[in-house]
């Protein structure tokens, strides 16, 4: 009965293939992604209702830390600027804070350590599906924002990174002020009690407790407070957002 089996297989593959091809047409149309994207706005609003902005991500114990913390995306930034910083073990590193702040400034890792710090063992969930658990120590972003003074017009905090994607596109990310002021939003310099490894974003990376991995910008070079991110990159608030991922990375 090979013929019948072949026919059945062709029929299943054909039907599924037609459906997939039809969906691909919609995915590539100008209207399809707009219609489908409506769900993402709904996700953000409904999740904010169900899980209040003050809710805390679960914090784990030392025993829960994963044996490895898989580094994803850039693992070795190749810009001369970064390579020079790395050669000197980041002793010359300064985080720049710019934009809508009263006191723009530059901060070494030691300066940051003098502001309010926090240690948290939280889970990292990649948009691809995998998870890892790590112990993060870092400066609470809210402490830094208080230190520099935020202009009331500022709505977003943008993180400009030292690594380039696709050769010459700098990685960047952004969160809104409310997320930036969440107690679990850190500028982390330690992972599992050791200085952040290069592959995980040395010397400074963002930790946002309740969003996916692509929000957790590595190799942060500067922070900019803005009222809109429309003029940064392609205007969607982040490198992956410019590639079609959602700015709201809570799901």
């Amino acid at each position, binding site marked *: 009965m090979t013929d019948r089996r072949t026919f059945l297989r062709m029929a299943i*593959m054909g039907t*599924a*293939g037609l*459906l*997939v*091809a039809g*969906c*691909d047409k919609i*995915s590539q149309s100008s209207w399809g*992604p707009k*219609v*489908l*994207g*409506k*769900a*993402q706005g*709904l*996700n953000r609003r409904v*999740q904010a209702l*169900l*899980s*209040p902005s003050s*809710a*805390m*991500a*679960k914090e*784990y114990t030392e025993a*829960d830390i*994963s*044996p*490895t913390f*898989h580094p994803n995306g850039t693992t070795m930034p190749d810009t001369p600027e970064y390579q020079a910083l790395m050669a000197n073990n980041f002793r010359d590193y300064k985080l720049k804070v710019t934009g809508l702040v009263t006191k723009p400034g530059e901060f070494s890792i030691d300066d940051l350590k003098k502001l309010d710090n926090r240690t948290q063992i939280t*889970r990292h*969930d*990649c*948009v*691809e*599906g*995998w*998870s*890892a*658990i790590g112990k993060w120590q870092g400066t609470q972003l809210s402490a830094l924002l208080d230190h520099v003074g935020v202009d009331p017009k500022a709505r977003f905090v943008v993180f400009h990174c030292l690594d380039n994607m696709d050769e010459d596109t700098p990685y960047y990310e952004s969160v809104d002020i409310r997320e930036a002021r969440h107690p679990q939003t850190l500028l982390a310099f330690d992972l599992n009690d050791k200085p952040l490894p290069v592959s995980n974003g040395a010397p400074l990376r963002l930790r946002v*407790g*309740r*969003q*996916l991995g692509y929000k957790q910008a590595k190799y942060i070079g500067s922070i900019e407070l803005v009222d809109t991110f429309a003029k940064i990159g392609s205007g969607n608030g982040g490198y*992956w957002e410019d*590639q*079609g*991922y*959602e700015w709201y*990375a*809570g*799901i």
Partner: protein
Amino acid sequence: MTTENVIVADAQIIAPPAPAKSKRLVYRHSLPIRLMHWINVISLSLMFFSGLQIFNAHPSLAWGNYNNPDKPLLSLEAREDASGNLVGITRIGKHEFNTTGLLGVSKGPDGTPIARGFPSWLTVPGPGWLSMGRQWHFFFAWIFVLNGICYIGYSLARKHVQRDLWPTKSDWRGIGKSIADHVRFKHPHGEEALRYNILQRLAYLIVIFVFGIGIVLMGLAMSPRMDAVLSPMVEFVGGRQAARTIHFIIAWAFVAFVLIHVFEVLISGAFNQLRGMITGYYKVDVDPVKVAGPEPIAVIKEAPHD
């Protein structure tokens, strides 16, 4: 048209002319149920195909809260053999299977084999495109959830769940016979065909209340924002990766249900069953004993049985 039926004590002696088999159309499925059924078909299909696209971004399953790359429960991998050809490997625990062409390695857009978990004819979009897969998945997740809430609300309000789905004591007593009937592909034709049998009732209840609600909760358990409030549930099921694994298993359990469901539709009168779920009208044989007098018209309007 009327049919005359004589109830005879001993048919072998009197031997009346065999009565023309009379049938009647029953309004079985109400319009809301039919609409919700087909909306569900579309949303579940697209969530399944886009779900496989999302799965392909990390074609591996784990238990607990994080992944141990060396010990997946299941993974769809690609390796190179000695001559440099890509080989698709499906790993389940310690067992490995060569699944080249279907899982792990299958044909890419230009026809050459590429590494991908599920093949392009099973994923939406066809090519690897995670962000677009997520768009499809979340869009139809909302449709599935809203449709499901409407269905459960409607079915409880109209007593569909209580009357047609919840098994009665006599249903439970007949479970042995029902299993025997199913494995022999025997289906009732008369009035009995209008009642859901015990296996149907259990299947529908489990699919709606266990699979349906379970897959949504396991989906939400993967959302880091939702986990700020759902973490007790996430830890209860064994962690975020366990929730992802359960989400995947329920998705395939839905597929198994659909295959059995479609098979049962095909062998119990595909045309009649499809008409029932499209127009609402379902034809059944009239049981001879129940028709004592002339029947008026074949079409009888009554409360939908759904």
